[in-house]
């Protein structure tokens, strides 16, 4: 991203903001959509995230990292805040507790080959919100359980158990096959 565009956004130049929006809109919406499966809700979060980005762009320090990582972090925070605000982190997992006992994972490569982005999205969409958030943060973003605990305001134990539950679900090949229509 051209530094002039960033400076233009900070100074309220509409043309610079338009360029910035068109450059990062799909990236930011992709992040929002990973955390929130509903299109309308994800678009609400997308707008909140973009407004936050424009308002705090003057605080961005390029010496501390790339701007894409910075805006992704804002989008993730916006999504987590929305989930918390709308009580999506409550224990609304309706699946039977016994389903989590299946922790033995068969080799997924035997079953699932060359997932498309849409199929990958469908798979994580099937997880309850809290498990999906922990899975996203741990597997996709690469955070540790301690970092996840701080970000989501939960304990490390909860983070670990949520990931274990998500993994147990993803380990059920029949379910995954059904999800992606194989």
């Amino acid at each position, binding site marked *: 991203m051209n530094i002039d565009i960033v400076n233009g956004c900070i100074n309220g130049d509409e043309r610079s903001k338009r360029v910035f929006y068109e450059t990062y809109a799909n990236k930011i919406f992709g992040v929002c959509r*990973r955390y929130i499966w509903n299109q309308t809700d994800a678009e609400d979060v997308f707008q909140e995230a973009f407004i936050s980005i424009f308002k705090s762009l003057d605080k961005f320090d390029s010496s501390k990292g790339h701007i894409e990582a910075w805006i992704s972090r804002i989008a993730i925070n916006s999504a987590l805040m929305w989930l918390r605000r709308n009580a999506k982190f409550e224990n609304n997992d309706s699946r039977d507790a016994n389903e989590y006992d299946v922790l033995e994972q068969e080799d997924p490569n035997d079953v699932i080959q060359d997932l498309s982005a849409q199929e990958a999205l469908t798979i994580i969409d099937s997880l309850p919100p809290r498990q999906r958030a922990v899975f996203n943060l741990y597997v*996709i973003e690469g955070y540790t359980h301690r970092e996840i605990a701080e970000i989501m305001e939960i304990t490390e134990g909860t983070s670990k158990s949520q990931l274990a539950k998500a*993994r147990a679900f993803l380990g059920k090949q029949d379910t995954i096959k059904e999800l992606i229509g194989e």
Partner: protein
Amino acid sequence: MNNEKDISPLEKQLKSKLQDLEMAPSRDFFDAINEKSSQPKDPVSNEKTTPKNSKLLRNSLVIGTSVTAIVFLLLFTQNKEEIEPETTNDAPAESSRPEPLKATTPENQELNEKESILSETTNEKDETVSEKSNTTQTEIETSTILTNLSDEVLEENIETSTESNTEVNETSNWQEYLNSNTDTTDLQDLFEE
């Protein structure tokens, strides 16, 4: 960053597909975003409720409630002082009462006697109330209500008696009056009660 080795093959596939996921929103939200992001920050709404702020707010509420309570007590005390002289001093109450009926006829005399008995009873009540008023504040208030009620009943009775008495004075024949005016009978019933 967590350990990449901790991630299963399926998770690696998911990560590679989702990490750089780009999706277009259903429409262009730029105008709405631009409008909202251009609005100046509201210093009041942007203030966070810190523990210090919430403590100040709580203290303000406590002080406000205390001041209200003190003002209420002062007003209550002032009102009480205004009420007490009326309840403890019987003289004005008595002086405001009409004089006993003049005994022009035997019936009038009878009415006057009954009224005087009623007055004495009320006076006794007043005295009792006055005695009680020296004990506790609660009793004072109760006594005040009782006294006022007694006075009101007495005044009503006296007014009725006075009206009746005037009518009796104007009627030369009492028996005729009784036959013609049933109100007097009612008045007698009232006194008997």
